[in-house]
């Protein structure tokens, strides 16, 4: 039997609304898919999961339609199943290890995880805070949330400080509603609040408060999970014209500030013809958001070929279905503007892949005399982020590497004792699950550190 496909939102609706695209399994679909699991003894899938969820065990409960028990199994390892079930790249993680996948299609573990998260009753028994030490968490992205949740279940008195006016980090302002509904994120955060975690918004670590303030207020350990903030630009002429956005800005305007919703005040303007530069998930999200924000057309420009695109295949497919035009092996070299600095077009050049170099990588090189002009009114740069620059000003006692990422030891501790770090600020832009894993492991390290110290 083949893997049970997930139903998708009607294509016409997808182009015009921000409703979730992947609709999730119904009960019958869940039972059919769960029944495919072979319940292997050596559980290869578990080793593919960064937080080691006991996958066969939760699927076994699903086979008996016992969703609540399945939820309890997942909860032992992951605090954010509703989020991970939606945004994890399962095809390269747990599902890649699935025995079923060798001959046919692997079990749709992510879809089952999502079913559990969406349908479980979630009646937790909340442990009273045991009055253990105070721990401060900087940033409310997945790394901060999972560190906070884990520490809280270990009995610590945890406070999360967030610079923005909403909690969730990239989950809120980056990943769009149609892939991860914001109600799911708020639910997970409410769950943590019930666990006793305190959340304080509008606090910028390094500006509003610093390490000494936290020490003065009695915090015994600090976890920094402030993400990889600073957006990259290409450095080509015309990049400061009106209508050139970083993907961060564009997605923040649309997702956090709801710029395309008339009831909100943040402006976006008429997008017209949109060109998105990049080939990762962020580029896909930006393209699909632009379509929904009433762009006349959306074209994606990527300097390598389809095979080299870092984006998940599924995202590329969804973007294509919705009408995003893909211009691969193409690189922008100048953004053209009118006398008022409004964009009128993008000068691009065609690329080809060189013969493999010593590392086997094929570099994109320009094809001579292949320049052409693409009509555009809006350009979105989705070419990656650098580490959050505020961190380097906080204290020289926290060592950074050459790229500006925080350096940590095997216990996730920075060069300043008692200060831990994880997520994108350590690894550079990565994934939700890696950030969650880092947060969770840091929590255990913090527990060990405080037990030894006190």
């Amino acid at each position, binding site marked *: 039997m083949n893997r049970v496909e997930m139903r998708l939102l009607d294509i016409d609706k997808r182009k015009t609304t921000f409703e979730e695209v992947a609709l999730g399994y119904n009960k019958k679909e869940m039972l059919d898919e769960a029944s495919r699991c072979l319940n292997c003894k050596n559980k290869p899938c578990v080793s593919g999961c960064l937080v080691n969820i006991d996958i066969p065990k939760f699927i076994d409960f699903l086979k008996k339609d016992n969703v609540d028990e399945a939820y309890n199994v997942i909860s032992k390892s992951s605090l954010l199943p509703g989020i991970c079930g939606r945004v994890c790249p399962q095809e390269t993680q747990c599902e890649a290890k699935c025995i079923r996948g060798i001959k046919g299609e692997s079990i749709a573990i992510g879809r089952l995880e999502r079913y559990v998260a969406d349908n479980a009753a979630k009646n937790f028994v909340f442990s009273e805070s045991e009055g253990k030490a105070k721990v401060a968490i900087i940033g409310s992205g997945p790394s901060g949330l999972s560190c906070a949740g884990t520490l809280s279940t270990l009995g610590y008195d945890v406070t999360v400080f967030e610079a923005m*006016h909403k909690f969730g980090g990239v989950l809120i302002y980056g990943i769009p509603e149609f892939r991860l509904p914001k109600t799911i994120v708020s639910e997970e955060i409410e769950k943590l609040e019930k666990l006793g975690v305190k959340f304080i918004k509008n606090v*910028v670590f390094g500006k*509003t408060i610093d390490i000494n303030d936290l020490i003065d207020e009695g915090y015994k350990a600090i976890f920094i999970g402030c993400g990889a903030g600073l*957006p990259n*630009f290409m450095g080509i002429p015309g990049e400061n014209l*009106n209508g050139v956005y970083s993907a*961060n*800005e564009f997605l923040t305007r649309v997702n956090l500030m709801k710029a395309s919703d008339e009831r909100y005040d943040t402006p976006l303007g008429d997008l017209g013809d949109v060109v998105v530069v990049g080939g990762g998930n962020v580029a896909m999200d930006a393209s699909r958001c632009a379509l929904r924000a009433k762009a006349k057309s959306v074209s994606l420009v990527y300097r390598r070929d389809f095979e080299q695109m870092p984006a998940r295949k599924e995202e590329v497919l969804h973007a294509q279905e919705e009408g995003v035009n893909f211009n691969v092996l193409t690189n922008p070299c100048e953004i053209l503007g009118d006398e008022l600095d409004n964009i009128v077009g993008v000068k691009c050049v065609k690329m080809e892949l060189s013969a493999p170099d010593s590392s086997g990588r094929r570099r994109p090189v320009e094809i001579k005399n292949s320049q052409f002009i693409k009509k555009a009114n809006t350009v979105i740069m989705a070419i990656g982020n650098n580490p959050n620059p505020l961190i380097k000003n906080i204290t020289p006692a926290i060592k950074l590497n050459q790229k500006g990422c925080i350096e940590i030891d095997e216990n996730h501790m920075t060069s300043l004792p008692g200060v831990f770090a994880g997520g994108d600020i350590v690894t550079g832009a990565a994934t939700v699950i890696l950030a969650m894993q880092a947060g969770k492991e840091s929590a255990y390290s913090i527990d060990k550190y405080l037990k030894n110290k006190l």
Partner: protein
Amino acid sequence: MYEILLAEKLNGSVMKMVISAPLVAKKCLAGQFIILRVDEVGERIPLTIFDYDRKSGTVSIIFQIVGATTRKLSLLKKGDYLFDFVGPLGNPTNTNDINKVLVIGGGVGTAIAFPICKELYESKKEVDAIAGFRNKELVILEDDFRDVTKQFFIMTDDGSYGEKGLVTEKLEKLILSGSNYERVYAIGPLPMMKFVSKVCDKYNIPVIVSMNSIMIDGTGMCGCCRLLVDGKVRFACIDGPEFDGTKVDYDEAIKRNKMYFKEEREKDCNLLRRIDE
């Protein structure tokens, strides 16, 4: 939520508000700014901190009613609350190693120039200031400035108050009359800062300007506050807001600040209609 403790009009379109924000008040310094959101559907806008009181935990802001958000803000009264108020953001003014300075403010920028004057004055530096306005009706903060400056000059475009003329004319006169300013701070409309910087450059006096870019997060995450300084992309929120005035690409900044002009106007109309109803 952040309580408004005082809301008063300084002139027809400029307002002052005192906000209860203890964490911001504890840390802020001259030259820094905050970002606020009026209500749940509001946009995030940056405003420079006008004054603060660490003991009472309050921060004052001064703003001109220019777009939808400042109009919304202006309708709030004492006892109302702001949804969000985060800061202090940006780098504080560097007032070290100088003894004699001139501070120039233009229009509502005068309010932003005030904390710099005050700080310099309190650290026993010799401070002169020039404030430029279109006409007498628009003059604000005259007494405040007199308190913290050695010499204070008001210029109006039409001569209805103070001296008639542009701040740059006064600047040049002061320089030529032998006032040996070690540094000039200029804060106001972009064209004003551009021309003040030109004059300073001509006489080789270091000049610092404060850039009021459009912002969202204020922490370096979105890049919408970017500008060209010395040919390089810089972010006003984390690299600024103050920059060497002779290095800023003003023409580009002027165009970037106009980016949402049309949408603002439309929103403004919608908002006005809503208010009228």
